[in-house]
């Protein structure tokens, strides 16, 4: 089992706020890791730190065996890491096609324009955006922008994909569809870390779950174990009975 990502003792502080405290975990290749925790727990900060947007104050990050602590986001991308943002960031004045091509051009495959365009066609149909290929990204609605965000990340054929709340705001059937998509992406060999609040979905799709609260990890393990962990329940709900009911509703 190869470890694609190793996070060791990572801490990050912003002024008076300790956003991350000694976060440590390993991620095996081909796994789906679900990252959960109450709002403000530091999940997106952790993503930003893994992705190179922030440099950890303490600790090390190893990606594909290489120490990438302090590397910049473009270094990460060029090694094969891609991510989506919680609040989507489309390149507004560029077309959907150009957005997706950018993913292919500047990711680790470093494609030329022609090949990137071919990849873009594939990914756009996969994401259901083919009909809007020549529309300006800024003119899409929020759901379409989310798909664009995902398509752009996929076009890079990443080895590690960081998904930040891709299920937010979707209807139950859309969630099912997206979960299927995520499983399909994984079957193509991509390792995934997902931040999610939709408990049912993330519990069912993840191989392992990692729980953050106030920047610290309070639980890590298989979904069915984590959900029974009293610390987790308390962090979210304060009521152990709720957890049981959640799992049963699944």
């Amino acid at each position, binding site marked *: 089992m190869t470890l694609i990502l190793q996070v060791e003792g990572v801490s990050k502080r912003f002024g008076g706020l300790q956003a991350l405290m000694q976060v440590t975990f390993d991620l095996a290749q081909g796994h789906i890791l679900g990252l959960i925790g109450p709002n403000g727990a530091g999940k997106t900060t952790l993503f930003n730190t893994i992705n190179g947007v922030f440099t950890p104050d303490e600790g090390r990050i190893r990606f594909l065996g290489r120490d990438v602590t302090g590397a910049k986001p*473009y270094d990460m991308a060029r090694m094969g890491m891609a991510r989506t943002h919680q609040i989507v960031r489309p*390149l*507004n004045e560029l077309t959907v096609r150009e957005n997706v091509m950018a993913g292919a051009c*500047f990711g680790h495959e470093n494609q*030329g324009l022609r090949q990137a365009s071919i990849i873009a066609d594939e990914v756009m149909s996969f994401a259901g955006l083919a009909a809007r290929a020549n529309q300006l990204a800024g003119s899409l609605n929020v759901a379409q922008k989310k798909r664009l965000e995902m398509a752009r990340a996929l076009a890079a054929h990443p080895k590690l994909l960081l998904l930040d709340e891709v299920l937010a705001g979707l209807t139950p059937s859309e969630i099912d569809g997206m979960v299927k998509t995520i499983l399909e992406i994984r079957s193509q060999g991509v390792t995934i870390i997902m931040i999610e609040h939709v408990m049912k979905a993330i519990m069912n799709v993840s191989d392992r779950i990692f729980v953050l609260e106030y920047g610290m990890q309070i639980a890590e393990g298989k979904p069915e174990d984590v959900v029974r962990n009293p610390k987790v329940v308390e962090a979210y709900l304060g009521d152990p009975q709720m957890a049981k009911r959640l799992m049963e509703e699944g």
Partner: protein
Amino acid sequence: MSQWKNLGLWLALAMVVLLGFWPIFSRDASGREAAFTILLAIVMASSLNIVMGYTGYVSFGHVVFYGLGGYVGMYALSALGWPLPLAVLAGGAGSATLAFLLGKAILRLRGSYFALATIGVNEAARTFVANFAPFGAATGIELQFSIYKPYGGAMQALWLTYYAVVAIAIFAVLFSFLIKNSKFGLGLMSIREDEDAAEVLGIVTPNAKTMAFVLSAILPGMIGTLFFFKNGNVEPGDAFRLGFSIESLVMIMLGGQGTVLGPVLGALGYQRLRTTLLTSDISIGSLPLKDFQLVISGVLMLLIILFIPGGLVGWLRQRFPSLRRVLA
């Protein structure tokens, strides 16, 4: 490649070619001078567009490349005795080097901070050159009249310089187009849209921005040398005229930033406006209309920013979406 079906490119090229070749066929010296000024403006606007329109970094100091390139070229001509073609290349290389060094210093600044830094660049460059002995300090560099002899005399030299500028202007349009449709250009435009997202996508932003800056500096440096060669001398005040930077900005905004055709249209339109003002008989109070050039430019720019921020080309693309793909 289908991108060559771009109407905007061919229109722009056609305009530059027509404008450039007309005085050559008519052998008209005053027409040549007028065209020369417009072609200069086209090169300045197109090159600034690489940094401003494609990369999204507003620069108020673009004239610095023109001025410094001009100085380097003039130095090569007078002190080193280089032939004109070599001097022109030296001018381009000189401003490219300046862009590289300057870029390393200020491209780390984002958006407004970068723009602020570029405001002071012009003044700093002017002051520096005015104190720099090898460049003639405050008096500048003056060419001996005999320098025109190898080119067949002053008259011939004027025409030769003109041919060179026409060639460079045509190249500037092509260059602009090639960049826009390249992978590099896609990177620049991604930076413009969202620099942080661009980094996450894998674009090495510091390098891309520096390259854009350097590329935008080469052609101004070359035409700077040509202009001052024609002029016979260069002084700090002439080389670093802040107004030139401002005009380039207005031209880009007018025509449409981020497009190939925009700066060309903007340059043509602006120069037309300028000529109209200069030759107008209208006076406001006791002052001729030409004194109000800056005021009119300012009002124009404000109106554009408020109502058609995409300039003329931007407005056309919005109004007629079918034109969007073809008018870039």
